[in-house]
């Protein structure tokens, strides 16, 4: 055990740098997924018929094995290739489903009487969305974001396979050289990161949650 901690300490520079890369991958992908997923989820509430097929499609995409998706994306022009960009695209794809679904169901579950009240007192559609529906759906939306982020932290380790960097680099190197300490040097920080994001977003959820 002391053996392992000495090993980790020795490599702290590299581990920190790769953790940084890892956070950037997850943060950028999550930000894009939220920026796309929330507005699309909101827009879908006006077209329940379309929502069914969009959510169904997102579900199917979710079922593609992640390593395969990374591989499929490499030859795709513009978004593909080797490196972080491709990895981020893949992470966005996986993050979209929980964010879309939760935004959609969150908004749909707002009490229709409250929505009618918003219309009846003279809110515009935008005001109703921003001041009433989104705040009331926020806990559900945030729960979706939380799932998306935690899943992304794990998935991002695979991104090293296509040269995107991050903590997966240490894991792959450990596997190649059959060095358990190297695998752990990647896996432990990744696990800590996932837990930290989970905890942080959970706290945010409580903080912004229903003050009823």
């Amino acid at each position, binding site marked *: 055990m002391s053996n392992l901690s000495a090993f980790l300490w020795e490599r702290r520079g590299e581990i920190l740098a790769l953790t940084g890369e890892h956070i950037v991958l997850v943060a950028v992908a999550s930000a894009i997924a939220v920026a796309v997923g929330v507005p699309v989820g909101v827009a879908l509430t006006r077209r329940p018929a379309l929502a069914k097929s969009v959510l169904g499609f997102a579900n199917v995409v979710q079922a593609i094995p992640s390593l395969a998706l990374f591989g499929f994306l490499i030859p795709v022009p513009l978004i593909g290739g080797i490196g972080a960009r491709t990895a981020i695209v893949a992470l966005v794809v996986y993050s979209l489903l929980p964010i879309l679904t939760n935004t959609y169901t969150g908004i749909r579950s707002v*009490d229709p009487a*409250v929505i009618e*009240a918003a219309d009846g007192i*003279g809110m515009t559609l935008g005001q109703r969305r921003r001041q009433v529906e989104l705040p*009331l759906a926020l806990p559900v939306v945030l729960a979706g974001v939380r799932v998306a982020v935690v899943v992304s932290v794990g998935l991002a380790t695979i991104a090293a396979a296509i040269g995107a960097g991050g903590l997966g680099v240490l894991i792959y190197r450990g596997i190649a050289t059959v060095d358990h300490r190297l695998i752990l040097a990647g896996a432990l920080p990744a696990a800590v990161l996932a837990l930290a994001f989970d905890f942080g977003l959970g706290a945010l959820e409580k903080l912004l949650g229903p003050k009823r």
Partner: protein
Amino acid sequence: MTAPILEYSDIRKGFSSGRAVLEGFSLSLGPRETVALVGPSGCGKTTALKLANRLLDADAGTVRVFGRAAAEQEPVELRRKIGWVIQEGGLFPHWTVRENVEAVPRLLGWEKGERRKRSDELLETVGLPAGQYADRRPSGLSGGQRQRVGVARALAARPPLVLMDEPFGALDPISRRTMQREFLAWKARWDAAVLLVTHDLAEAFRLADRVAVLEGGRLHQVGTREELTRSPADAFVREFVSEFGA
């Protein structure tokens, strides 16, 4: 007689099922007058109410609000000039009592100080002093208190017309009587005309100057309690009044 605040002329409204919810509906509401729309469920009374603030639009006939055809008025602007009270108040659960009451003045861009003064005054009027209630959320209030906040919210921007849809329908009989008494006291101080929907004829007689009896999308009769009791227009009104008008 002064020009009506709200006037329905020969309205027809149907839904996709094809059945007409309202047919040949005409009614007018003068300034400061309270008219109640009464009838069994599905008689079209709520539909009639929603035509006034354009939550619904008529298929035929015209609704005139404040002397102008409703169809020519921007729905959002029109609604901000009309108070709207629904069952249980329809309050925003994530807003405090004060934020709920100030909703329309805020939409209209009133100054903060002016809004605050108005909400203090209204909360006092409805018996929920701001010091004690302004910062609570709707979940921390009883049904009757929520209803009071709903009334205060509807009156905040001093609308000349207030629409009420079963405003006291969700209350227990005792709170209901209290609210009805208070409604009459408030009404004496407002400058608003009120169109009130209720399924309770006794409540309609108690609160309204005139009562309109609807059934099956048709207006059977409009009149005072006297008129409806003494000279019912048809068999339906006669039975309805004798059975429920006690």
